[in-house]
């Protein structure tokens, strides 16, 4: 694994300790808030794999997030719980399958055309779901009971309890973070960075780049699916907005704000955006104006994202 700057390591470790300890003191509202932030961080990490590491700027990433969320809704019987592993497996599977199909087409394009076609696929799915009454149409649908994990009659945790859900989300986020770091240091990870840097040369070196991009796209789709499953289980609600380009755009903003192509950037970005949103919403009804201003400033001052704040301390 590539070494991170010392200052960032300290910040991340402190952050992790604080996250582990928080449920001991935190109120339910903040527990749920941070749970959502952690889920969005997973979602943002999945997009960063494409945008930051492979150089594929997707504006349709919410498709996989939404599809997985709807899969959980469809798999949950009306007043009963869905199985934890079966529904999670199905959600990830369907998101990965969707990514395989979409990726097969969109990865034939690049640059601005790639942005356009990912956007188009996202919007097609959005309108399909929006106009399908059996999927709840524009209102979406409720999931009344959260998935349950039972091993021979014993449940290690109860997702109905906010603190339990919080720890499940935290564990997933940490797992995704370390899995991605292992992945990026592997031969596969080096190939995708090579593709980002100079795809033409990668091909002449003998790499069938399309295949690697497709696998990367599917992995990113599956991880977005994990986030989608978590959000649907957490909120007990799915709606078409989860698939819309607003969602994809906000996600891209998180990645850029935090720092593209840095391991912790997407986490910082998701946290920053969500916290500021909450803060500004408390101040004024024109909070979006404030948020927009903040983003403009931050991109101007920190073009490589919030993770850049820690880079300058690297040699301490």
């Amino acid at each position, binding site marked *: 694994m590539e070494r991170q700057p010392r200052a960032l390591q300290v910040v991340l470790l402190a952050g992790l300790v604080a996250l582990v300890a928080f449920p001991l003191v935190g109120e339910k509202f903040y527990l749920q808030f941070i749970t959502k932030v952690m889920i969005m961080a997973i979602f943002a990490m999945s997009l960063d794999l494409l945008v930051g590491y492979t150089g594929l700027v997707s504006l349709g990433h919410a498709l996989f997030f939404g599809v997985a969320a709807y899969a959980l809704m469809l798999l949950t019987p009306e007043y009963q719980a869905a199985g934890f592993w079966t529904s999670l497996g199905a959600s990830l599977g369907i998101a990965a399958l969707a990514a395989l199909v979409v990726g097969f087409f969109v990865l034939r394009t690049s640059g601005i055309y790639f942005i356009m076609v990912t956007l188009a696929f996202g919007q097609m799915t959005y309108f399909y779901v929006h106009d399908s009454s059996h999927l709840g149409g524009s209102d979406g649908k409720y999931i009344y009971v959260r998935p349950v994990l039972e091993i021979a009659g014993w449940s290690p945790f109860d997702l109905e309890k906010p603190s339990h859900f919080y720890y499940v989300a935290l564990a997933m986020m940490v797992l995704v973070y370390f899995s991605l770091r292992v992945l990026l240091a592997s*031969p596969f990870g080096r190939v995708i960075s090579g593709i980002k840097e100079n795809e033409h040369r990668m091909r002449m*070196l*003998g790499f069938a780049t399309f295949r690697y991009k497709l696998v990367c796209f599917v992995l990113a789709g599956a991880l977005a699916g994990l986030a989608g499953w978590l959000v649907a289980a957490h909120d007990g609600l799915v709606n078409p907005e989860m698939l819309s380009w607003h969602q994809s755009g906000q996600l891209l903003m998180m990645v850029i704000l935090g720092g593209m192509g840095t391991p912790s950037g997407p986490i910082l970005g998701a946290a920053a955006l969500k916290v500021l949103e909450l803060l500004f919403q408390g101040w004024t009804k024109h909070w979006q104006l404030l948020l927009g201003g903040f983003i403009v400033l931050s991109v101007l001052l920190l073009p490589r994202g919030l993770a850049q704040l820690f880079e300058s301390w690297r040699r301490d």
Partner: protein
Amino acid sequence: MTEPALRTAALRKDFGGLTAVNDVALECRVGELHAVIGPNGAGKTTLINLLSGDLAPSSGRVELFGRDVTGLPSHSISQLGVGRSYQRTNIFMRFTVFENCRLAAQSRLPSSMRFLKPAVRYREVNAAAARAVELAELCGREQVPATALSHGERRQLEVAMTLATRPKLLLLDEPLAGMGAEESARMVELLKKLAPGHAMLLVEHDMDAVFALASVLTVMVNGAVLASGTPEAIRANREVQEAYLGSEDGE
């Protein structure tokens, strides 16, 4: 006799109305250094692009190691044992010298769909990369990012990456372009050292280097082969002198 590593027949490439490569037939064997010379715009780079799979020919045929490879994509050509270096430096600018070569060497793993073990722990890959760095005389510069290299060093790296893929056939597009006299001399030594074990197609404007290295020479003008033969025969060829060499002598 052994199969030629490279053979083309009636190779042609049209760009709209312009025929950049016109009815080119040539061969290159292992142990042979086949130099292609010709004035600017003669179609030399385009020819290499056709051989490396960067471009598909309009018509004609490319055979590698006795196999018809016409129209195969560049990654498949590369995997058959073809290494290509570019006239315009084409490297991973933000990677270090070693990582450029390591990634090139990694391409010879049966597959890079490997997700767990760190890439830097593949011993054979590291060894191949280190060997390429050494051959191209970039020792001591391994950890320098490519952006920080001098122009000559970038040219060396370009060749090092090509070597790291362990090619049997080398397609070198003006490896000496823009190099200083000393760097140039070193590159010529390297090519001399490589010649016995490889089939090499060398495009080069530096006539001293060409005549020092080539066992076969092909002269291209306006996309077509004007003459082909031993360096002595080419030097003595009246047409070539008029069309090309003559003008250089006059300088």
